């Protein structure tokens, strides 16, 4: 699992690459989101298009990320590719993010409140 963080004005975009499964990948996602929240970045877009597989631990971590962001009065949205995962996994993702699933990144970015700030990139890997 590798996570690259892009900045689109007030939105932090996390590009996930690799399987989101129990162990270091899930821990990396948790650490990445917690670090951003600690830096007061509470508008997060998780880009799952580079994630070929999600297991139950990955679903659990997505839920935990949503809880943490909501606790901070923030917003979290998902950029993904419908039909890529098992039906049960996709159903749960739908239920968890009913109004926050996007297949187009531009639409996902614009769904956040108006932006303001330059772009940059940081990287974390596992």
């Amino acid at each position: 699992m590798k996570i690259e963080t892009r900045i689109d004005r007030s939105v932090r975009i996390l590009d996930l690459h690799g399987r989101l499964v129990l162990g270091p990948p899930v821990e990396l996602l948790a650490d990445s989101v917690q670090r951003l929240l600690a830096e007061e970045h509470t508008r997060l877009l998780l880009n799952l298009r580079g994630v070929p597989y999600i297991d139950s631990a990955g679903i659990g971590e997505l839920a935990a990320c949503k809880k943490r962001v909501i606790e901070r009065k923030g917003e979290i949205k998902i950029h993904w590719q419908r039909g890529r995962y098992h039906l049960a996994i996709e159903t749960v993702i739908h239920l968890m993010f009913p109004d926050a699933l996007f297949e187009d990144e531009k639409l996902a970015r614009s769904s956040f409140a108006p932006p303001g700030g330059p772009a940059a990139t940081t990287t974390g890997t596992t």
Partner: protein
Amino acid sequence: MIWLVVTTPDGQSQRLQLTGASLHIGRSGRNDLVIDDPTVSRVHAEVLRRPDGFRLVDLGARCGTLLNGVPIAGSAPLHPGDRIRLGRTTIVVDDDTNTPVDITPTPMPTGPSTTMLGPEQIRLPAVTTPFPADTPPPLTTPGTPATLAGPAPTAPRRKPAQDAAAAIMELVLEADRQMLFHRPIEQILEAILDLAGRTIGYERAALMLVENDRLVSKVVRTPAAERGIAITLSSAIVERVLHRRESILTSDALRDTRFHEHPSLVGDHVRSVMCVPLRDDHKVLGLLYLDSREAAGLFTEQDLRILAHLASVAAVKIENARLFDEVVRTRTLESEMLQAAAIVDHLLPADSPAIPGYDVFGRSVPCRHVGGDSYDYIALPEGRHILTLGDVAGKGLPAALLMCCFHSALRALAASGLSEAETMGRLNRLLHARFPPNRFTTCFFAVLDPERHHLTYVNAGQETPFILRRAADPLPLPSAGMPLGLFHESEYAVGRVAMEPGDVLLCYSDGVTEGLSPAEEMFGQERMLSAAAGAAGEPAATIVAAVTAALERHHAGRPHEDDITLLVVRRSD
């Protein structure tokens, strides 16, 4: 914590830490501390730990028990420094006031009073031809010609030259005896300093081990009056011992003028120092340090060789003890995991329920000792039965612990007479309060009414079960609800399906459909349904066996990476 330093009439001594609530002392092998001294009674005395301190109890010993020279009547309080006399055996009570070891930056001592032996130079002189203590054999010392200058030792221990061979033999035999049997590593470390004390003698000693890349003092011996006062070690000596694996002797440190710049070392007035590595063939485990402030030249090169030999034997024993402890820990963990597996297995139904007109069979195989998958049957009034299959996120023991929580909560709620949707809603809230934020369980919850042949169900995130029906495509019962424990408020839709004659309900965990072949291809729903359909006319257990066999063929020997659970309900024709 207190220690007992036991010295028997033959001069043998051992140091024991008093760890339990009591310690029985006597000659009989049934005692905690067995003393091989005919003047000691078979069951002689006992040391008791009480809230207000330690007490010594005489257990009716023939020759009595003396405390600080006075016979005790019954029992007496025990304090550090006390001397106990049992027959001809003496036991001194010692406390474990922590004496630190400071490592001070200093240059390496040089000159004729310093000897350094590399690992290849450490060998004991031949026992049959002892060399006199005042004429040591020549040796080559890195950078410094080796000569042992200085006056004849006036130390606590100085054996005559003719005793040298006997001393070496005594050390080797005693080291072998001490190190032969397994005992806790703390006792081994104490025994090493006991041996060094008896064979070489010292005023102060320290045994340090490398732990997590840090040198940690494990046993420190100092005169009683100096307990708690730090021993100062030269960083240069420590560096050479640990990294060059050299054994170092400085027979008159105070003559090295460069040490005068280091008040902590000079203040210690150390004259003779020996420091050797505790090493095996692969690495240095730590070091052994002895010193004396009584006289220069107390230690000789022969002593250095003896100490280095002792350290080598000790290092092997320490490493073996560590490995032994690791094996014990692993076995304990393995045993606990097997017990956990038995407990978790006991939670799953031992037998299938007897439901008129239906045949039910479930099977769960964890990929580790225990897992987070489960299935259950719960009888309800009017012949109805709850049938469930759950899959807690994650694997192994953490998932199994949460599965036990889920299992108990489900059983408690199932008896409360709530509707299916209410049961799942309450179960969700309960698990949300108990589970960690990133944990949840999926669950297929169904109520079978065998009279009306209805199956009412809620699917909370579980892999889609199917109804296999003759001459029809498999009927999916997809998930419409959030897994349990993820969010506080979740609503659950209830589905209902009629069970026709010959219908087969096939429930499974994702360990079935996501089972991988050696080429990393998933087993998938299609293969699973094909295997189940091929046995759909057979009993439920046969259908489960057919799917399992097909999955095993697909795995082709590849280990399971997830728990595998199947639950089949078949209506009779």
